[in-house]
């Protein structure tokens, strides 16, 4: 039961003035007791380094890491009472499953009786359904079984914090989804504060209570999955979260009475000024359309701007398809369930509800307008709104 706090944490590898690398740059965040935080970002964004600093495997160059308000910067990894699940499982190959599970208990507390340890091992094995494997060595286990043992090794100690370093990256796709749910359930069950690192935005959206999106060592946004999806703090977050990628077009924003006129070349539309937090009269902007928010006009009226596009590729995914099109020389992606009668090279009219349009300042890349979740009676009604942040992310990235 621990509240984790990072305050201005920076990690530099090598001397900063002599070509050193700043892996983590001034990251501050708080993970409340029992909360599940996901650190999300592309490779090399510093998420793993952040996790390792929390675990004590790396020391921060600057800043303070604290558990329940107590600074732990100088506390060694072995004394932090933190458990970590590694990407490649890191099971001890010379020990059987039971010994692997019990290793932390035997070390941590010398006077714990071996009956007690055995009881705990059996309880955890039962919880993870690996009772039958206790005498096997890791070499004899499948990937999913190894993953369970690695989880068990973390759970058995009932630590203050769970750290997960891309624990599902080495599993195949279907197993990844099962284990994802299991980790989620397990964490809610034991209620231990957790930090989970992944580069997979779909995994992040489905598992996290909160998501911290990182890029180039900096924290881009900290929020719930739906905040990150609907109100990305900047263009990077908007593009990184969500699949297929958001459509982004450069354009201009002009104040015109009580509306803003947005011109993006491929289309033009008005936005009520209340929706936009823009200071200047004319602004270079970047407009974003989520592929999930673009509908064919023939199937649904959105009341928003229409875009004529020539279909290039229709990629069926079962119940829906990704439509790859081209409009005035610009690529556009949309997803739709009404695709069976579509031919490639056909032209379609796509439209998007104004409240679903994202607007970014072209200079700062900061968000001007996010995606509103309020229901609009005159659009495609309820079904559109079911596609909120987490729901839209069930598609495979």
């Amino acid at each position, binding site marked *: 039961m621990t509240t984790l706090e990072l305050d201005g944490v920076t990690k530099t590898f090598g001397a900063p003035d002599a070509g050193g690398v700043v892996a983590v740059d001034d990251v501050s965040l708080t993970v409340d007791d029992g909360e599940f935080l996901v650190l999300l970002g592309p490779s090399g964004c510093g998420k793993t380094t952040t996790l390792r600093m929390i675990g004590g495997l790396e020391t921060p160059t600057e800043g303070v890491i604290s558990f329940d308000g107590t600074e732990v910067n100088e506390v060694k990894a072995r*004394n932090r009472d933190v458990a970590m699940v590694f990407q490649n499982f890191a099971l*001890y190959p010379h020990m059987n499953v039971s010994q692997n599970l019990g290793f932390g208990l035997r070390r*941590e507390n010398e006077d714990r009786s071996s009956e007690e340890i055995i009881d705990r091992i059996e309880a955890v094995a039962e919880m993870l359904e690996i009772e039958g494997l206790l005498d096997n060595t890791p070499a004899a286990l499948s990937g999913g079984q190894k993953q369970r043992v690695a989880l068990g090794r973390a759970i058995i*100690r009932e630590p203050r914090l769970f750290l997960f370093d891309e624990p599902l990256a080495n599993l195949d796709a279907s197993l990844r989804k099962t284990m994802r749910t299991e980790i989620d359930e397990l964490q809610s069950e034991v209620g231990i504060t957790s930090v989970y690192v992944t580069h997979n935005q779909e995994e992040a959206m489905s598992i996290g209570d909160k998501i911290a999106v990182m890029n180039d060592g900096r924290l881009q946004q900290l929020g719930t999955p739906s905040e990150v999806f609907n109100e990305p703090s900047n263009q990077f977050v908007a593009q990184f979260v969500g699949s297929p990628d958001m459509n982004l077009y450069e354009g201009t924003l002009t104040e015109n009475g009580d509306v803003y006129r947005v011109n993006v070349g491929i289309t033009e539309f008005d936005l009520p000024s209340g929706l936009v937090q823009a200071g200047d009269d004319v602004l270079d902007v970047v407009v974003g359309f989520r592929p999930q928010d673009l509908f064919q006009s023939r199937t649904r009226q959105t009341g928003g701007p229409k875009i004529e596009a020539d279909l290039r590729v229709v990629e069926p995914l079962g119940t829906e398809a990704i439509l790859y099109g081209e409009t005035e020389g610009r690529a556009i992606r949309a997803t739709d369930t009404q695709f069976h009668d579509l031919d490639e090279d056909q032209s379609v009219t796509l439209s998007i509800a104004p409240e679903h349009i994202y607007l970014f300042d072209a200079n700062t890349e900061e968000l001007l307008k996010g995606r509103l979740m309020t229901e609009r009676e005159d659009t495609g009604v309820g079904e559109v709104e079911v596609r909120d942040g987490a729901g839209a992310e069930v598609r495979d990235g």
Partner: protein
Amino acid sequence: MSYADQALSSYERALGRVPDGVRVYLPILPVLALVGVFILYPIAQAIWTSFTDKHLLRPDEAEFVGVENYGEVWTNPQIHEVLWNTFVWVSVGSIAAIVIGFVLGWLLHEKLPYTSVASAIVLVPWVLPRVVGASIWKFMFGGSQGIINELLVQLGVIDDYVVMLGSTELSLWPPIVGMVWRLAPLFALLTLTSLKGIDRQLYEAARMDGATPWEQFRYVTLPMMRYNLVIGFLLMLIYNIRNFSMVWVMTRGGPGVSSSTLPVMIYRAAFVDFQVGFASALSMLLFAVLLVFSYYYIQVYDKIRGEF
């Protein structure tokens, strides 16, 4: 290209007529012949010779004498000292080489920069021709101008130069030092590679599991290296017990037999005293010991292959 071109040649057809049970042995015939001529035949010859009174001055007049040579092995006045020397040589030499080699390998892995350069330097004693290495040590242990005597005097260990190679009490030790110098690098390299083979993440897992550095060494490093260490230990035993050049170059086994090990005694019996029969009987003794070591070596080796 027609199917006719693919037809079996007359040679292949002839091969086809050989019964299956015989045919499978045909491919290993060349190797079998080489092993037979160069390994099995000499061994058989040596076993036979050990039952004769063959003498190099009259090699054609060898007569079968039964187990007389083996009897002489037990009654020989020198054999006990030689066996004791061999025991000291093998145990002290191996243990010292292992301890020093392990520490060296660990330092190469953990502490020293430029591992590849450092391991190349460490390997010099092992790649240097044996006689050259032995000659250097003989020179360094020299009684009148040897640097080791000078060093010991400077350090205050001894008051004056000691003729170590010519002393019946001390003559075994300089060759042991030379042998450790030669074998430790091999063990260091073995240690280095087995340490490098351990996944670093296991140590991180152990740290997260609350293990102290000693516990990491005891419960991760050592068990992960156990087979490599056993293999290395057996290799050290085998190399040590077979060694001839280090002793021969430095002391010729003397004075008396004070620095003789079994291989040196065999050489002396055969090529100094010309008693080839007796030398062969001694060889059988060495052969038996080596067989035991080799048996365990192969056992461990198979176990490793079964595990990975």
